[in-house]
């Protein structure tokens, strides 16, 4: 703006930072984050190439158990690769009691270890629980062989890990 004298008037006044809109935004973010807040964190970890199926189940895993993950290429026990999934697919589908030898041995060792821990007092009891994470595009055949192996090895309480559906 020009004054009659031809010089621009410099307005010396401190403009306060307008934080109201920022506060609005922060409040919304805060509410959103509080909604997805979880104090426990997640017990289950899952591999990148493992897509779990969606389900309505609301049950959260409470304790850390033995984890078996079956991805498209590998079978992992407690996040360590054990055998290629193709090996399971190669097994005859018509066998009445299919047992995957490598997985059976591994599970058997784990159960022995748990029993040792019970004896030494480190664990209260072996709950024989296993969490099975299987890719949602896997055939039933693979699931059946894995479940049967777990059952034969002594892990009779099986849980399937799933993704909670968003409301």
């Amino acid at each position, binding site marked *: 703006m020009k004054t009659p004298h031809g010089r621009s008037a410099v307005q010396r006044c401190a403009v306060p930072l307008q934080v109201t809109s920022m506060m609005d935004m*922060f409040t919304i973010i805060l509410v959103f984050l509080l909604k997805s807040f979880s104090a426990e964190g997640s017990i289950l970890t899952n591999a990148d190439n493992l897509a779990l199926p969606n*389900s309505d189940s609301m049950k*959260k895993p409470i304790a850390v158990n033995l984890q078996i993950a079956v991805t498209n290429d590998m079978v992992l026990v407690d996040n360590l690769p054990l055998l290629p999934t193709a090996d399971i697919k190669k097994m005859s589908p018509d066998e009445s009691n299919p047992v995957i030898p490598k997985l059976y041995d591994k599970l058997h060792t784990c159960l022995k270890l748990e029993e040792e821990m019970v004896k030494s007092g480190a664990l209260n009891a072996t709950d024989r629980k296993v969490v099975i994470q299987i890719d949602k*595009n896997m055939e039933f055949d693979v699931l*059946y062989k894995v479940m049967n192996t777990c059952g*034969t090895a002594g892990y009779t309480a099986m849980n*399937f890990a*799933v993704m909670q559906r968003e409301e």
Partner: protein
Amino acid sequence: MHTAPRTVTMKSVDMDLKPFMNLMVVLIPMLLLSAEFSRVTVIDLKLPPDRGSTPSRLQKTPFSSPATDKLNLTALITDSTVTLGAKGGFLPTVRYREYHRYTARDDHNSFTVEYHPGSTVTHPASGRTMSDQERQDILLYTCDDKGALEHRLYTPYGELVTDTEGNALAAVARGDSVYALSFPRRLIVVTDPQEYDLRPMSVYDALHNRLMKIKERYQDASDRDAIIIAAENSVVYDKIIQLMDTARKAQFPEISISKVRS
């Protein structure tokens, strides 16, 4: 001491929001760190201890003793049908057509295509072959023997509309008393037939409806909470999980898994 008379000026003073801002700046990173955006939950398989999971023991029980009060409820799923069996008999088979909903990883384009065994799915815009990892949902819709989709009414909340006998309805009129498929069934008096949505009936809803009927009829069975899900080798795991969800929604929480021998 004498002071000069002061002129009183009215000045608007902004609230000092800085402490609050500081708090926010600390709180938001903390909440971000502990936020969970995808929740992993678990489904319990309640295997009775005497049954274990060995198939040899599983095979002995089904359908052998229809005279007892055992229900022996079984859901058989194959590539194109779902059948419910109980008390040694089978209900009419539900045939289905399979649709897959994909979400492309590159442009987040979402589309639904009918699935035919052995066929590949291509992206509608770029013609790229879609991978299994991009498949979001497997939708199963009931169809009749000739393969025509069966359309039924759904409430605005996505529940199947049934009549008093529990049959899914395809048309309603003003003033009708209908039930929405939930647990327990919810009675609705139709005020506006327009608000109901006619769409292909999902197999899971059809099964949910049938399971609810079985649950209502056989309340005194000793295994009234148990269901055996039997599947063919080639059935995709996702369908089994959806079937388990349906069973749990219809109050059959004790789920066992079996295999259909071909």
